[in-house]
């Protein structure tokens, strides 16, 4: 009992320290590295709270991918344009005083709202447990994401597509191509097959245990980015038809399933009897590939065609 408290207490202290450090450290680079550490610690905390799905997603997307995106953005910013946080000593602490007071006030109000919340499980959770047998997958989180609330997930895939589209509108800046040193090359060759294996495993496990399309997609993207940075993978861009097909495939397939289920009379996004399992797997495969390619394109960017 006591060592559990010790662990949780130190996690809580550590995450607060890291949060403050992210905000107040002097160089942007250090701040990003600390942010990645913050994300990993947060994943650990989710795991401690009994939410392994969230922990996986946080580690893959919150820490891994967001960190990579931030580093990529930093790499593309000319040194002259970097607004490094200027540290002005005591004055900075004085200036953050009102912010601290405001934060404490908000914290107090939220605490008042959260404390009286009831403990028992909600009507929706009970309904989900009751209908889990008909959902086509054994893992409740996957059942919610791809069956009970599939429409949300479909829209989330569109959100990702739109995020990519928004980045595409920005004018390209020259990405720097650093030389890959031999160790990185060898290490990537070793890692790549493992990453594909683990990605596939995460995807497959999603139907019965924590895991699923978003985590697998993020992992595959990490592998692709690694290989691309070491020049082991040929350049890919929006002008390749297969890239477009894979990026759009996730949303398109999902939408087509909705369309056909409505057409066949089962109801919009209502999988026909006995088809739920296979359809969910197919949707997840399409979504994983779409997520992986989109995230890869977001990080390594497209160097050739942006406009016109």
């Amino acid at each position, binding site marked *: 009992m006591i060592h559990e408290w010790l662990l949780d207490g130190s996690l809580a202290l550590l995450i607060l320290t890291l949060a403050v450090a992210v905000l107040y450290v002097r160089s942007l680079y250090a701040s990003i590295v600390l942010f990645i550490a913050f994300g990993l610690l947060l994943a650990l905390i989710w795991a401690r709270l009994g939410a392994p799905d969230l922990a996986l997603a946080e580690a893959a997307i919150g820490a891994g991918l967001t960190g990579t995106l931030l580093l990529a953005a930093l790499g593309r910013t000319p040194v002259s344009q970097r607004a490094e946080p200027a540290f002005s000593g005591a004055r900075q602490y004085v200036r953050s005083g009102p912010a601290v007071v405001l934060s404490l006030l908000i914290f107090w109000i939220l605490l008042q709202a959260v404390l009286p919340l009831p403990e028992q499980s909600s009507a929706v959770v009970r309904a989900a447990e009751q209908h889990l047998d008909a959902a086509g997958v054994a893992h409740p989180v996957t059942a919610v994401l791809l069956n009970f*609330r599939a429409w949300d997930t479909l829209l989330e895939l569109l959100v990702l597509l*739109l995020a990519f589209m928004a980045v595409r509108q920005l004018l390209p800046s020259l990405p720097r191509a650093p030389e890959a040193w031999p160790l990185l090359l060898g290490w990537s060759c070793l890692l790549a097959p493992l990453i594909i294996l683990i990605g596939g495993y995460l995807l497959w496990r999603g139907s019965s245990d924590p895991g699923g399309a978003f985590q697998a997609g993020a992992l595959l993207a990490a592998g692709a980015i690694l290989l691309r940075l070491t020049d082991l993978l040929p350049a890919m861009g929006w002008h390749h038809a297969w890239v477009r097909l894979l990026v759009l495939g996730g949303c398109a397939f999902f939408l087509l399933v*909705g369309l056909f289920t409505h057409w066949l009379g089962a109801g919009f996004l209502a999988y026909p009897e006995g088809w739920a399992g296979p359809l969910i797997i197919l949707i997840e495969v399409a979504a994983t590939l779409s997520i992986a390619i989109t995230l890869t394109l977001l990080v390594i960017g497209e160097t050739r065609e942006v406009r016109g």
Partner: protein
Amino acid sequence: MTAALAALLIPLFTALGLLLLRSRSGPLVILTSLATLAAACWALVEVTTSGPQSLHLGDWPEPLAIRFQLQPITALLLVFTALIHLLVAVYAARSRHCRTRDTDYWPLSCLLQGSLNALWLSSDLFNWYVTLELLGLAAVALVALSGRKAYGPALNYLLLSLGASLVYLLGVALIYGRYGVLDITLLATQTEADQSTRVAFWLMTLGLMLKAALWPLHLWLPKAHASAPTAVSALLSALVVKGPLFILWRLWSEAAPVELAIETGPLLAIAGVAALLLGGWSALRTPWLKSLVAYSTVAQLGYALMALGLLMHWQLPALDAALWLFVLAHGLAKASMFLAAGELQATLGSKRVSALRGTTETMPVAMFAFAVAGGSLIGLPPSGGFLAKWMLLEPMLGQSEHWPWVAGILLGTLISAGYVFRVVALAFDRADPVPPDFKPDRFAHWLAMLPALVVWGLALVSQPLIAWLTGATP
């Protein structure tokens, strides 16, 4: 419901198809917009003849599924969205000055329409969060089409929009923790005015007000709307800010406990009056034409916010009709005004209001469209704006304790007249007109005129329209 689903899916499939083929074909988008409009009209007819419908997605039972709800007002908004989208698409394809022709405007605007339609149809708190994210991202991407000078406003818009989404989501999480349901109709039967509910509703309101640029959380709007390409400004002002407003309305008129609504109403109404006065004041002062139109959006949203606040405070369902009339009239007028302003400034080669001197002589049609749309914003009879304002004023005039609100509305009207006549008076100064750089594009000017004429035409059907709206809103 099939018709409503078609109106939702056609734009989404169009966008995916355009992206897949790397096509930037305006005529194709116009064609599919027409199909969407037809589907939306069909949904409207269906809902008027056979009453409201609802659809449980995935065929799951009550608390589990996301529910689509097709009410008369939803169908009307579907038609309104399709109409504005079609008009702007025709403008973007045909106008010589439109800079969005060879960009990703086409797929993005289709995605925007699809996400708005998803928002209108949904009745689930979390699903609304996802549609809000979609809407925000699409809008930001569209603003960024303007090129480098728009990156700053677009980034501000993105960050504020994400922050607002998170605040809204926090409220939704509290509601889910307290009641365990997300569907708004189920929620309506359960809510009580306790501390958790109060904080949750305030958080959601705060997030939505930021998203809808309701005063005092409007500061991102003028820059973002003014720096976007003309077609995009029209879409943003006419449609996008109405999405969060719709959710706000449904939250407070359906789900919120009555005590809480009565208590919060005056705050919103006061914010509405402040928006009217201060937004109008900024529109009076700004030297830039598009900023003037954008600030007028901030001011005009004040009327809608005021209608919402007062309907919450007095529990007067009659004001629902006023609120939605404002939304329709403002959307039409603002589409017209932005298109006209964009044409005027592109033809004159200047973004300043002062460049409009003598435009009644050089570009009479565009200026007339601007003035006619402005007349509806002021609320001159017999325009749609007048109808809405009359519906809002009617329940107040009888009771003397409500006269301070009346004074606020009248003062707001005076200021809107001020900023509209500021432009119109300059346009009639024909002694020394600013010469246009290009030959005016007649077709685009008439296109800008179209919604302005429709908004004045609303007055012709005012009696059945008001009766329908009063019956249509629950």
